[in-house]
């Protein structure tokens, strides 16, 4: 009967370690070389942990942003119903359902990242302990044994630590693949939002539902203009007349203007 999964995998790891071991004439050199590799790997693991944390935070922000957007659409749907526009309410709720689906998706990703982060932290601590133990063993072996004697002593420590490094290295790679995937996904969500497919979260350009609601309840453009002019004449020095014009109906937009702009900035810098 051929080897099963667990035997084959251990053989693969062992052959990898043996290849590295064969590269050096004096086995004691392999100890120093391996130690150097271990330190490099530790650095990489720490960076990996930081990268996963960054991705997780980005997903968190996007979820918050989408949540606000969903709340806003719900408010719009209610407003539309009050004004007897069931068609608009339906449109708003349809968009809200779309956003809920995106949030559900992101939440699954978020949980995976959280798990990965915890695993990496745990593995990094274990590796740290092993590297320290290896350093001590390495000095003992080098001080006590001749090159020929060292051979046997080194075998176990070397394949043991290679296996650990292989395992941690794979975990890092998986984490990197996952964060790359998420970056792509996060950008896709950003693009959807920017294109208006998920509605416009920036609050700068008003979406069509808001516009229609405003047209309905403001009593027409003339009233709007009059109000705006009055405001200007009274010295109100409206810094953002285009936003002031929507006063009274675009309340749902107002609260997230600043936070959304910040979120977008953060997202772009990440």
């Amino acid at each position, binding site marked *: 009967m051929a080897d099963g999964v667990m035997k084959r995998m*251990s053989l*693969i790891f062992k052959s*990898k*370690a043996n290849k590295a071991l064969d590269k050096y004439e004096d086995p004691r050199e392999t100890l120093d070389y391996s130690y150097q590799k271990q330190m490099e790997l530790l650095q990489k693991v720490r960076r990996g942990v930081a990268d996963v944390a960054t991705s997780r935070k980005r997903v968190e922000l996007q979820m918050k942003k989408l949540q606000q957007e969903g709340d806003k659409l719900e408010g719009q749907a209610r407003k539309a119903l009050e004004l007897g526009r069931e068609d608009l309410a339906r449109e708003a709720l349809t968009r809200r359902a779309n956003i809920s689906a995106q949030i559900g998706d992101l939440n699954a990703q978020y949980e995976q990242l959280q798990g990965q982060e915890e695993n990496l932290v745990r593995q990094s601590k274990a590796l740290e302990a092993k590297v320290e133990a290896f350093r001590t*063993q390495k000095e003992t072996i080098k001080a006590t044994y001749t090159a020929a004697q060292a051979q046997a002593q080194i075998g176990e420590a070397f394949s043991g630590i290679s296996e650990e490094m292989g395992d941690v290295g794979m975990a890092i790679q998986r984490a990197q693949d996952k964060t790359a995937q998420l970056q792509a996904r996060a950008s896709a969500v950003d693009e959807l939002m920017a294109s208006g497919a998920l509605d416009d979260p920036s609050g700068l350009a008003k979406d069509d539902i808001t516009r229609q609601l405003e047209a309905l309840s403001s009593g027409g453009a003339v009233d709007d203009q009059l109000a705006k002019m009055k405001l200007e004449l009274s010295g109100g020095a409206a810094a953002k007349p285009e936003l002031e014009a929507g006063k009274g109906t675009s309340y749902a937009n107002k609260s997230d203007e600043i936070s959304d702009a910040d979120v977008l900035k953060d997202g772009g810098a990440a």
Partner: protein
Amino acid sequence: MIVRILGEGQLVLEKQSLDELNELDNALMAAVEAGAQGPFDEAMAALLGKVRELGTPLPVEEIKPSDFILPSAHSSLDEVRDLLSSDGLIPG
């Protein structure tokens, strides 16, 4: 004997657990070869669960190669197949 579950660490098990593990491992291998997702998921969960149940963690300061190595939990069928077909996936 020592068994490593990738991503989790090494566990020490009694030698006589091997028969039981081999049986579960054969089921896993068969599922991988057949490319059968359902049986694969079941076999992975059973084998990893058994190793966790019977094993005690090897202290982290001990540096020893494992007798057996298992894929990490939630590995996909494709990932395991790739792992077995080459050593290209193990960095370093």
